[in-house]
């Protein structure tokens, strides 16, 4: 069993860098901040959900005013648009958002620091939870503002958190997609070899491509740095 030191030692886990970046996007130092921010997003979304469930009387709203004794946030989450979404999902949209953020944190915590190669399916699920669902969430928040006519500070905070998560998560998904694409090319298509690699079953091609991406001789010497510190 891995020791805590092996799992969390930054000097150990940040090496080696993974193409096309100059760091390991699956490192705990990359993923733990995503999980923390996702949990902040969960707290923001669950406040909206608790109001929609009528378990709290008010939503904190420092900027925007609403109507009928409600502030801007309360007017948005109790709007007809929001009710329409309740009709589709049968749970409040704030609660659905909270579940999605919880999923970001859960999938962020799962997998080793080489999961871009060893469990691509997990990285793809993580990417799907963070990127497309995050962008859809942001669009819905802005649609509420423009369609309903009121703005909600916590909804905007949630949209900002979603966009931040997209920025922080894209690198791992990108490395994983490059890995899968190279496996596909060498395997000659979406055949058994490719799907073995996708579902974390080792084979020669998956091993070779993985080693090349780690060594950095995968054809593109230019590596991308997310920040000068990396």
């Amino acid at each position, binding site marked *: 069993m*891995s020791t805590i030191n092996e799992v969390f030692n930054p000097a150990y886990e940040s090496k080696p860098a993974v193409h096309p970046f100059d760091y390991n996007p699956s490192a705990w130092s990359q993923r733990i901040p995503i999980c923390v921010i996702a949990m902040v997003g969960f707290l923001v979304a669950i406040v909206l959900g608790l109001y929609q469930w009528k378990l709290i009387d008010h939503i904190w709203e420092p900027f925007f005013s609403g109507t009928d004794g409600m502030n801007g946030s309360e007017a948005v989450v109790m709007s007809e648009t929001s009710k329409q979404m*309740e009709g589709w999902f*049968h749970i409040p949209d704030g*609660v659905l958002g909270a579940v999605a953020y919880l999923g970001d944190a859960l999938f962020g915590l799962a*997998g080793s620091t080489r999961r871009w190669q060893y*469990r691509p399916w997990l990285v793809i699920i993580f990417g799907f939870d963070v990127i497309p669902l995050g962008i859809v969430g942001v669009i819905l928040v802005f649609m509420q503002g423009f369609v309903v006519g009121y703005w909600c500070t916590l909804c905007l905070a949630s949209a900002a958190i979603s966009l931040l998560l997209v920025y922080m998560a894209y690198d791992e998904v990108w490395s994983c997609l490059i890995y899968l694409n190279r496996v596909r090319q060498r395997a000659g298509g979406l055949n058994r070899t490719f799907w073995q690699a996708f579902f974390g*079953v080792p084979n020669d091609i998956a091993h070779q491509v993985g080693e090349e991406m780690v060594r950095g001789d995968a054809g593109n010497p230019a590596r991308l740095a997310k920040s000068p510190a990396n």
Partner: protein
Amino acid sequence: MWPRTVEVMLACWLAISPFIFNHDDSKWSWWWNDWITALLIAVFALLSFVRQTRRAHLLELLVAAWLIGFGWATSSGGLGAPAQQNWICVGLLILMVAVIPSDCVKPPEKWREWNERHGTGRVGRPV
């Protein structure tokens, strides 16, 4: 094994849900739905601790689909009763947790064996 622990906790929540949401005595299907799904989730999660049945947690995906479907189908337009929303929420959570492998912090067993056979120096390590 943290995903399995989370599942057992969610199963406990489902088991006590009838008392928290105060199901009507006449709605026996709600009581049984909570208890049977709780039992199935707990059994599948605990079976995953045994090597021979380590993938039993994947069967929870069926239970999750049932919970979401039952909660969604029995709610007629708009929000359902709290218990019905509870099934949908717990179903969504189980759907996410159940796909996560038990030894998720380590590389998959087949990759560990591969690394051991090929002497890559990454036997059991989390890289």
